Structure formats: C-alpha cells, structure tokens
C-alpha cells in the first residue's frame, strides 16, 4: 500500500462518518462537507503534481508509480463533479441525502484503496466495498428501473467476486504470496508459468466482468440506464473503470504481456477488447434511450482500453492509461448532460426529444465537445489516446486490429452524431418546448470537464511526458 497516498483514502472516510452526524438537522451541510472534502483533496493533488518545479523535472518527483496518483486525481475530479452536480440535482425531500453523500465518499475511499494497493487480496476487498456502495447508490431514487439495475449489477458481477477469490486462492497456493511485486518477479523469471498464470487468468476474468467487457457486459446497460442520474455518471465515469479497467491494466503490466510471457491470455484479452468495441458501437447505433446508448458507448470505449492493455507494449499501456483518463472526462460530461436533459425535459427517450440546442445551448455544446473527443477528433484529448492505441497496434504488426479499431471509431462518430441530431438539433418537440436550460451550478461541472478535454488535447505534450513516465515506471 502506498503510504504517501493513504490520506486520500482516510479523509473521505472520515468525512463520510462525520456527515450523518453533522447534517442531521441541516441537510445542506452534507453537500458542503462532501464537496469541500473532495475539492481539498483535488487542490492537494494539484499541488503535488502540477508545481512548476515538478513539471520542469518531467514529473520525476511524483510519489509512487504515478499511475496511482493520476487515478486518484481522476477519482477525485469525477466525484467532485458528481457531488457538485448532485447538490443542485437532488430533490429537497430525499430522506437519505446524507447517506447518499456518505456512500459516494466511501466509494471514493474504496477507489483510492483500489488504485494504491499492492496486494491482490486487499484489491479484492476494496473492489467489493466499491461494489456494495455502488449497488446502494444505483437505487438512490428507489425507482423500479434502479432496483432492477442494482440487482443485475449485483448478481451478474457476483461471478466476478467468486472468480477473483478463487484466483487469489490458486495464486496463494502456487506462488505463496499475494503481492504485486512477487507476481512481477515471477513473470520476469524463467520459471514455468503453470498454475500462477491460471490463477492470474481467473482474477483477470473477474476484472473483465467488473469492467463490463463483452460478452460479460450485460449488467452495464441496465445498471447505467436505471441508475439515479448523477450516479450513472459516477458509475460509468469512474467506478467501473477503477474496479475493472484499472485492474486489467495493472494485471497486463504485472503479467508482462509485452514480452510474451502470457501469450494466450494477451490474445484473448485483445480479442475481447475488439469484440467490446464492435458490439458496443453497433448496439449503440440502434438505441433509443439516451442513457442506454451512452452505456453501450461506454462498453465500446472500455474495449479500446482493454485492447491496448491486452497488447501490453509500453506505447499501448500509455494509450490505455490516457484513454482511461479521457474516458472519465468525456463520459462524465455526457452522462451529466443526460441527467440535465432528464431533469429539464423529463425524459431521456431520444424519439421524444429534439431541438434542445435552442433552449439548452450549453448542454448541447458541451455534448458536442465530449462526443467529438470520444470519437477521436483532433485536437481533443480523445484523439491522442486513440491515436496512440492505434499506433501501438500498428507498430506491433496487428494491422487488422488497428484498422478495425479505426473503423469502429467512425461508427462511434456515427452514433454520436445521430444522438446529437435526435436530441439537440432539428425541430423542437413538445417535450423540448418546455425545457429551459438547467441552472449554472449544474452546468459548471460539465463546462469544467469540457475545458479539461480541450486542455488535455491542446497541452498534450505535457501530459504525454507524464503518461510516458508512468508507463516507464510501471513496466520496469
């Protein structure tokens, strides 16, 4: 466990415990406490990583492997956006307001635990905490769909927990230790792989299920669609990415895919990644519900990350990390916008929406920025990560994969354009007539994230240095 980042785990936990007591009589205090906690953490992180001296030194003085820090930052950022958004989104009468914030803070703690741990069992524990919190969060608005989504999430990812624990058992028996380092040393040695890789494969399968990779994705559309609106942004933006995708990337580096030690596993992972890209994009084409379409889009984008992780070369890992961060930014924007649309127009059915750009210009424009970034249009940040991934594939000689990844990027653009046309462009529908732009605090997070998308795209060289440093450290 990385001691340097322990505070980022403990302080939200402390806040989470304080909130119910402090906000007993003043519900608004819960909003403030949660936001302040996350904002303070973010400010601290910024000081840690963005001091001029650190940037000048090409981030050599970053604590830990850099990857953890980056993800902690992403976690805090997305969670801050979600809590800030929720503060104005939640209806006044919601009885469990403070519990909602506590759960979000606990999930932040758990995510920080996931990304800072160096032991498989601890990883497992934190992932389970995350599962419990998100499953309670999904049902926040106690709708039938939310309950159904929560139960699907719960039961369909249950095999993942079982597989991970079995994998851990196999690994403990064959390797005698559960720390990341011991697996790394084992894979670097010449010892025959045998049951160790099998144990790792079982764990990997668990993470694949948690990440919602096709064909284990079936829980994702229902969960994202049914979830309480800001929670779907939280889930899609960061929770499933940390509990599944982060672990996959970590496993990919530990299993040393790049030197061909676990060839079969690497190939399988890449195949699943491509399958995800394809199925997610194609299914998204035909969706009529905005949130469900975004869920499939999320599956498709996770496919890119998994594809790159499965390749495992340093360049591919860089692309995967970068795309993970980008995915957090643009998917948060899109899901929060869908929440705004839901609040304003009362529905997320795309057949009933239309012409919202006149009444909701900010929402429309931030959506455009986010969707262009998702589709990989330069100079937005999504372009660079996709470019790196496709370059890595091409460099590794996997031209077919590269071409298909590129093609489905076009499909991505197609379904997003369709979405934008149906929801924001065109003639106003009756539902759109009476839907004013949401208030400024609800727009602030999406505008911030859109700005970040543009900034990450334009300041790509700095970010590239950082991600390169990360890839070097975690692959050494």
């Amino acid at each position, binding site marked *: *466990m990385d001691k340097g980042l322990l505070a980022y*785990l403990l302080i939200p*936990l402390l806040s*989470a*415990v304080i909130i*119910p007591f402090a906000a007993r009589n003043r519900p608004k205090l819960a909003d403030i406490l949660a936001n302040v906690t996350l904002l303070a953490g973010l400010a601290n992180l910024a000081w840690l990583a963005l001091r001029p001296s650190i940037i000048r030194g090409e981030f050599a003085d970053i604590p830990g492997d850099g990857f953890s820090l980056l993800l902690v930052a992403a976690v805090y950022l997305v969670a801050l956006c979600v809590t800030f958004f929720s503060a104005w989104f939640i209806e006044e009468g919601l*009885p*469990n307001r403070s*519990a*909602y914030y*506590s*759960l979000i803070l*606990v999930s932040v*703690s*758990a995510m920080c*635990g996931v990304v800072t*741990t160096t*032991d498989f*069992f*601890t990883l497992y*524990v*934190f992932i*389970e*905490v995350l*599962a*419990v*919190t998100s*499953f*309670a969060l999904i*049902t*926040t608005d*106690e709708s039938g769909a939310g*309950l159904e989504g*929560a*139960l699907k999430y*719960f039961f369909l990812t249950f095999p993942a927990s079982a597989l991970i*624990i079995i994998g851990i058992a196999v690994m*403990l028996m064959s390797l005698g230790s559960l720390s990341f380092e011991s697996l790394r040393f084992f894979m670097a040695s010449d010892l025959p792989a045998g049951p160790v890789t099998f144990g790792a494969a079982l764990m990997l399968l668990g993470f694949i299920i948690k990440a919602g990779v096709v064909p284990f994705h079936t829980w994702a559309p229902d969960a994202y669609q049914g979830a309480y609106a800001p929670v779907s942004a939280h889930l899609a933006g960061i929770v499933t990415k940390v509990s599944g995708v982060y672990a996959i990337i970590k496993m990919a580096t530990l299993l040393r895919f790049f030197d061909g030690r676990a060839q079969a596993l690497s190939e399988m992972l890449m195949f699943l990644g491509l399958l995800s890209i394809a199925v997610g994009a194609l299914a998204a084409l035909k969706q009529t519900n905005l949130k469900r379409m975004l869920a499939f889009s999320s599956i498709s984008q996770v496919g890119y990350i998994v594809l790159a992780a499965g390749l495992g070369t340093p360049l591919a890992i860089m692309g995967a990390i970068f795309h993970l961060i980008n995915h957090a930014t643009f998917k948060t924007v899109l899901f929060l916008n869908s929440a705004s649309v839901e609040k304003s127009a009362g529905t997320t059915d795309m057949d009933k929406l239309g012409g919202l750009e006149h009444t909701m210009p900010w929402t429309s424009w931030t959506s455009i920025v986010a969707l262009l970034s998702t589709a990989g249009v330069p100079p937005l940040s999504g372009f660079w990560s996709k470019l790196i991934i496709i370059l890595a594939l091409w460099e590794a000689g996997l031209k077919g994969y590269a071409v298909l990844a590129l093609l489905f990027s076009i499909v991505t653009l197609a379904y997003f354009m369709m979405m934008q046309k149906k929801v924001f462009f065109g003639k106003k529908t009756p539902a759109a007539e009476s839907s004013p732009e949401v208030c400024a605090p609800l727009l602030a997070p999406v505008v911030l994230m859109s700005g970040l998308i543009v900034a990450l795209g334009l300041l790509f060289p700095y970010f590239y240095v950082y991600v390169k440093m990360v890839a070097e450290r975690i692959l050494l």
Partner: protein
Amino acid sequence: MTTHNLLFVLAAVFALWAVMAKKLLTSAIMLALVSVAVSLIFFDFSAPWAGVFELSVCAGLITVLFIGAVSLIRADEDKRPENRAFAYALPLAAAVFAIAAWFYLPPFFEELAAGRQMAAGGGTIGTALWGLRRPDLLGQVLMLAAGVFVIKSVFPRRTENK
C-alpha cells in the same frame, strides 16, 4: 482445549440460529458470527492466514453483501408466509450431531493440536492481522462503514413505503 470446544459449540449454535431465524437480517448477522467463531478456531490452530481470510471475506464482506441484498427486499415480500416445517427437524439433527461430536471431536482436536506444534511460530492474532494484513483491516473498516450507510440509505425508504 476448552476454548476449542467452546468456540465449536458457539459456531454450531450460531449456525443453527442462522437457519432458524425468521428475519433474514438476523440470519445474515448470525452467519457472520459463525465466521468469526470459525476464524478464531483457525487462529487458535496456528493458521493465521486462513483466519484472516475467513474474517475478511466471510465475516466482513459476505455479511455486508447479504445485508445489502436483504435491505433491498420490499416490506411486502418480507411478509410472505414461509414453509417452516423443516425447522422442526433441525433440533433433532443437531442432537444427533452433538452426540457424534462428543465421541469423535476430542481425538480430532488432539490431532490438530499436534499439527499446531509442527507449525509453531505462526504468530498471534495480533501480528497476523496487524503486521501482515494491515491494509485489509482498512478495507474492513471501509466495508463496515459502507454496510452502515447502505442500511442507513435503504432502510428509511422501506419504513416510509410502509
């Protein structure tokens, strides 16, 4: 020796209670107590790793998951009458098992104790929990907090819905 017996009896009692309980929540909590008893037995027989994992997974995790799931079940579903015929057979089965245990368990414990001497130096509960698996403890704390908040988040609604 007496601790073993005591813990064993406790585990059996909790297990019975879990099966017999009318409320699902009680069942879940009793199951957690079974796990705690079993993990204490593990510690006592110098298997700290097994004890730690038993404690983490079964006593912590699974319980919270159970509680979470239980809390989702609506009040009206809760009230559906349940066929409890099997419950009457249970004390009988327990009695049969207790008699068998009276004869067979002491030799079994002695055998296990011999094993403990072979694996001497496995450490105490404290070193195993605190020295080896400290991050897990943090996870457990988080887990407990999560469990509390889940209950806090879900139960008010149930009462309101009534």
